């Protein structure tokens, strides 16, 4: 570690997560220049290849190749959603290099294709930092399970499961000793507290505890929109409600079965936490994917979308100030929400 270099493990983790999560943001919105920028100067290849065996991508060629091989629909979207999970970041080389392992699950929904996972696999990314920000150096990919890819890529027969591939071994040293936390705030603790707030909602709603959901969203400015290309909900359209109002709204809208449970599971992935410079406020983005199933309804993905949240630091930790919920992909919601709510969702949704 050179003397001028300051290593903040929490901040480095956050930056690297953001790079890994930027690929879904670009690809799922049909942002081909964004895909190109992601791959620009990056060695790309499958698991098991050495650096020398992997060509270095260029922005233009990567964008062109992606545009040609991935199916984009008339509104410019792929209607695919890349969930990024199992993210493991290991620092090496005194905090100048890192390896990020992650799992991807691609969901898709089309009028002819009920919402479902269409493939899943892993990324093995190498990143480095010299003086400036972290940079992706190499991405190795491996597809583990293949589903119905016919609505996502133009030549599905060209895509095969990567044979028996495991991660190239990583020499996971413990990384450098961190600078003392003499700064304005503890980034690692703040990240933990904010993640916990985001993860509270699934805990409550999946238990059918709508009173607790009311408490969670009490006084939070809330807005919703449908579609991956939806504009950000403007501040003047955000509404806040009391805990009691939210509870009764949920009781009316969410279906529960036999034992009072909605039989759902809200998966939260792709969590990106960004702090203001003074560490007093934060914005986050995350993806939600809801599973549902029981004896009469095969276990399946019923909806997937995003939360854009704003937080502020308070004495006891952090407070959720606003939540924007965007619905991206819709499956069979008939067992999850009342007919009225279903009508509102499908009226807005192009699929």
């Amino acid at each position, binding site marked *: 570690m050179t003397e001028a270099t300051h290593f*903040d*493990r*929490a901040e480095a*983790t956050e930056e690297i997560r953001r790079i890994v999560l930027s690929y879904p943001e670009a690809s799922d919105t049909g942002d081909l220049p964004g895909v190109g920028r992601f791959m620009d100067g990056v060695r790309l290849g499958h698991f098991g290849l050495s650096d020398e065996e992997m060509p270095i991508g260029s922005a233009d060629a990567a964008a062109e190749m992606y545009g040609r091989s991935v199916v984009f629909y008339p509104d410019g979207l792929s209607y695919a959603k890349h*969930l990024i*999970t*199992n*993210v*493991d*970041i*290991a620092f090496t080389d005194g905090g100048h290099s890192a390896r990020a*392992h992650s*799992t991807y*699950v691609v969901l898709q929904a089309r009028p002819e294709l009920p919402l*479902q*996972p*269409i*493939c*899943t696999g892993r990324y093995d990314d190498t990143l480095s930092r010299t003086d400036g920000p972290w940079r992706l150096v190499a991405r190795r990919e491996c597809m*583990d*399970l*293949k*589903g*119905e890819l016919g609505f996502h890529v133009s030549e599905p027969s060209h895509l095969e499961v990567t044979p*028996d591939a*495991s*991660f190239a071994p990583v020499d*996971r040293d*413990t*990384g450098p*000793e*961190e600078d003392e936390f003499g700064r304005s705030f*503890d*980034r*690692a*603790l703040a990240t*933990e507290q904010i*993640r*916990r707030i985001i*993860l509270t909602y*699934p805990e409550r709603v*999946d*238990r059918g505890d709508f009173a607790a959901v009311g408490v969670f969203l009490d006084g939070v400015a809330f807005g919703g929109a449908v579609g991956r290309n939806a504009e950000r909900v403007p501040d003047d359209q955000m509404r806040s409600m009391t805990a009691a109002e939210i509870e009764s709204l949920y009781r009316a809208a969410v279906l529960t079965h036999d*034992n009072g*449970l909605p*039989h759902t*599971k*809200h*998966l*939260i*992935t792709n969590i990106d936490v960004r702090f203001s410079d003074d560490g007093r406020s934060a914005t986050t983005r995350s993806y939600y994917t809801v*599973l*549902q*199933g*029981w004896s009469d309804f*095969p*276990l*399946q*993905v019923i909806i997937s979308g995003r939360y854009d949240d704003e937080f502020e630091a308070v004495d006891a930790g952090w407070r959720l100030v606003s939540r924007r919920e965007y619905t991206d992909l819709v499956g069979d919601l008939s067992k999850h929400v009342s007919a009225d709510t279903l009508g509102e969702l499908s009226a807005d949704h192009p699929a």
Partner: protein
Amino acid sequence: MHVAGTFNRAQSTEEIRRIILSYPDLVDRGDIAGVSRLLDGVRMCNANGILAPEVPESEIPTFTADEVRNMYSGVIFYEDGLPHTKHVITNIDIWFTDDGQKAASRCFYTVLQGFDDFPLQVIIAGRYEDAFTHDGTAWRLRIRREYADLVGDLSRHVKPEVLAMLSH
């Protein structure tokens, strides 16, 4: 170096996440020897349903590496040695005691599986509730409580006798 007062929260978070994430990596590769090493000496239990009460620690047995290996005798591994599953881990929440010597975590698991004649689908989803201690050099998984919340078609993942047991 890990003593009270110099507890490095970011690094501990990273190490605990790595333990949690090493299980899917091993099991999806069919590396049961690796799984048995990971879970050797860990106290483990199973329960079903999202409202299942927490199993008291005193009721949770400790498993040896051999016993862990036996647990997987009911899982189907195909000709290539793989179970053709993918364990997706989400909603990871880790919290620490004030002295940084103990930690607990909750996370969700979702298992995907697919074959040519079995569309890629979710076959089960549930939770892990884990307890960790720091032994002076590294974090160790001490207790794993597994809760199955939503169950799908497990017919390609576990052998018929296990399936029959699960459906009761």
